[in-house]
């Protein structure tokens, strides 16, 4: 009567390995002997997968208690397994919101710190790391260490964006942001082409704290970069409706779609329809914050539309200001090779974060979903070369396919990061499938 299916641990894109996740309310207990701790599994690639030969990792999601919250300063301390969506919903009614949120609410605080996530407000607020004031980790040596900008700053800087490799995150302390109302005022504008897009992003940055663009990655030639720009800010109390935002109903994709469902034709059709769904003129409306920050979360398991073969996401940041035209050259290279993608997201990025491997830097971030096909690894390697040539880098939380030598060429900070690991984990007890692939960790 009991089906014994071999348990597997998977990345959001579908890549999986055999293994079990050990979860407990006592995170230190399960993490003590573990090679890695995992949050809610929203990294697309292999950064939250155990290295080859390791069959269990620790899971933080049951260690989800808020330990302290100061209602006047906004200082919050919580166990690393607190889910962002829960935290946001808990605090929204009290007019507080997390200072930086990524594109999904289904991440843990620990995961957010490990990836040093950025959001639609990166151009003003930076990454989550900027707002973190203290961290508590369980190191490879089994010690519980509190670190901050004053205490063990090397460990602190290595942990922001350190993909969980510097120690198991147990507790996170950060500063929440005061908000004037629990609603978002959103503006959408149809954009003609890439030049218009980049100009609009730069212009909107001055007046809008939240900006992001979706663009049609398959439109060719003159229409390259046709899409929709979203910008927003928290509504003032006068603009906001009197009622509080209600919990959103969520649909689920119940099963993997067949492989042929997402192909060049269907995606072009979708993109064409979506581009026209937004009115030509600038449209402004009040929007539920969950719809604004996490539109894809409305459909649970949306990753199943990519079928059983799954997908990967390629996200890079290109130093557009220093190398004008970098974004266009990258998009042209991607369009040339085909590879249907619903989602191509553009974000103007601001200052680089303190985290040694923190992803964003001034320029433009481009994120592309790529269905996993036979030629996808080759495509990813080719795109990585374009990124290297333009002086950009990739986002580890999305990556599954870039080559180790390519990563080294785009990441001069890696040496500092490895030095920090030499100090805190000389035996490399903590590793992931990704760190074995990219950093040369022992398998």
């Amino acid at each position, binding site marked *: *009567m*009991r089906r014994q299916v071999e348990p597997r641990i998977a990345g959001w894109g579908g890549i999986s390995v055999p293994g079990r996740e050990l979860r*407990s*309310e006592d995170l230190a207990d399960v993490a003590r002997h573990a090679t890695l701790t995992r949050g809610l599994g929203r990294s697309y690639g292999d950064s939250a997968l155990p290295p080859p030969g390791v069959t269990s990792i620790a899971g933080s999601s*049951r260690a989800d*208690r*808020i*330990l*302290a919250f100061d209602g006047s300063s906004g200082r919050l301390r919580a166990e690393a397994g607190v889910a962002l969506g829960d935290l946001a919903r808990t605090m929204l009614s*009290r007019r507080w919101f997390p200072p930086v949120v990524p594109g999904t609410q289904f991440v843990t605080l620990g995961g957010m710190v490990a990836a040093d996530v950025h959001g639609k407000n990166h151009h003003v607020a930076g990454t989550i790391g900027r707002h973190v004031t203290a961290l508590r980790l369980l190191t490879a040596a089994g010690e519980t260490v509190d670190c901050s900008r004053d205490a063990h700053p090397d460990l602190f800087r290595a942990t922001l964006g350190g993909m969980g490799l510097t120690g198991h995150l147990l507790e996170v302390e950060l500063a929440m942001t005061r908000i004037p109302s629990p609603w978002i005022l959103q503006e959408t504008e149809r954009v003609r082409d890439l030049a218009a897009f980049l100009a609009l992003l730069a212009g909107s940055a001055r007046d809008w704290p939240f900006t992001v663009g979706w663009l049609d990655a398959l439109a060719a030639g003159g229409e390259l970069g046709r899409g929709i720009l979203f910008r927003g800010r928290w509504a003032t109390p006068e603009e906001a409706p009197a009622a509080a935002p209600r919990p959103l109903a969520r649909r689920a994709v119940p099963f993997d779609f067949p492989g042929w469902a997402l192909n060049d034709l269907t995606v072009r059709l979708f993109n064409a329809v979506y581009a026209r769904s937004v009115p030509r003129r600038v449209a402004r409306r009040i929007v539920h914050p969950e719809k604004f920050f996490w539109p894809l979360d409305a459909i649970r398991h949306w990753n199943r539309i990519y079928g059983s073969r799954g997908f990967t996401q390629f996200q890079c940041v290109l130093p557009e200001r220093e190398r004008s035209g970098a974004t266009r050259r990258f998009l042209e290279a991607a369009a040339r090779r085909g590879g249907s993608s619903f989602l191509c997201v553009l974000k103007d990025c601001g200052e680089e974060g303190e985290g040694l491997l923190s992803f964003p830097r001034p320029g433009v971030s481009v994120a592309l979903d790529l269905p996993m096909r036979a030629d996808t690894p080759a495509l990813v390697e080719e795109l990585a070369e374009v990124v290297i040539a333009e002086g950009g880098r990739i986002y580890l939380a999305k990556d599954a396919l870039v080559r180790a030598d390519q990563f080294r060429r785009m990441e001069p900070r890696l040496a500092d990061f490895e030095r920090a690991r030499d100090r805190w984990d000389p035996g490399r007890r903590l590793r992931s499938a990704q760190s074995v692939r990219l950093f040369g960790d022992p398998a």
Partner: protein
Amino acid sequence: MNTVILGATRGIGRELARALAARGDRLFLLGRDEADLAASARDLEARAGAEPGSIGTARCDLLEPEGFAPALDAAARALGKLEAVVVTAGLFATQEALEADRALARRVLEADFSGTVLFCEEARERLLAAGGGRLCVFSSVAGERGRKPVVLYGAAKAGLSRYLEGLDHRFRAKGLITVCVLPGFVRTTMTDGLPEPPFAADPDIVARIALRALDRGTPKVYAPGIWRWIMLVIRLLPRFVLRRVGF
């Protein structure tokens, strides 16, 4: 409702406590580890927007019956009046582990049966003295029939279920509303590593069902409800079948 919870620091208890705190119930937490209790109390206060320190805690261990009365008295002092007592705490171990370790078997039997019953007796007296109230205790479908994988654990839970049924018959007219929750297989730290049967549930679902039963005063509820039918079938299976199957 003024509610005392034994077991709010983890698993189903944590979810149920959050649901109670979210709707404004005044809570008092009992458990084995004081630091853990304090962390859970701060979490519930933060989530409900309640004043820090408004949720009191006291040490209470199902294996230490002499501590039951002082713990419940502390709760009554803090809350003013006890209106509901919830017990989600308990110990679990596999049948193999229990057969191999007599001391473990003794602890599980004492915590899950005699300890829980004696705690409920203290709770019963205080609730009746206060004019009535609710006693919500988590048993398990494992007690519904003697079965190979849960001989000892199931026996303890069977005894507990029978006791709660007796309480319902004897004291409901006097104002003591007994609610016996029978979860099926729930994905918590307690069941980690066990092969998952069909109809396994997450703790938040079970907590929601328990909350509804607590409010309605339902004497016996399966969580999720489908387990009522599953256990009905299992109870009807002939002995020679149960001797042969693995479950």
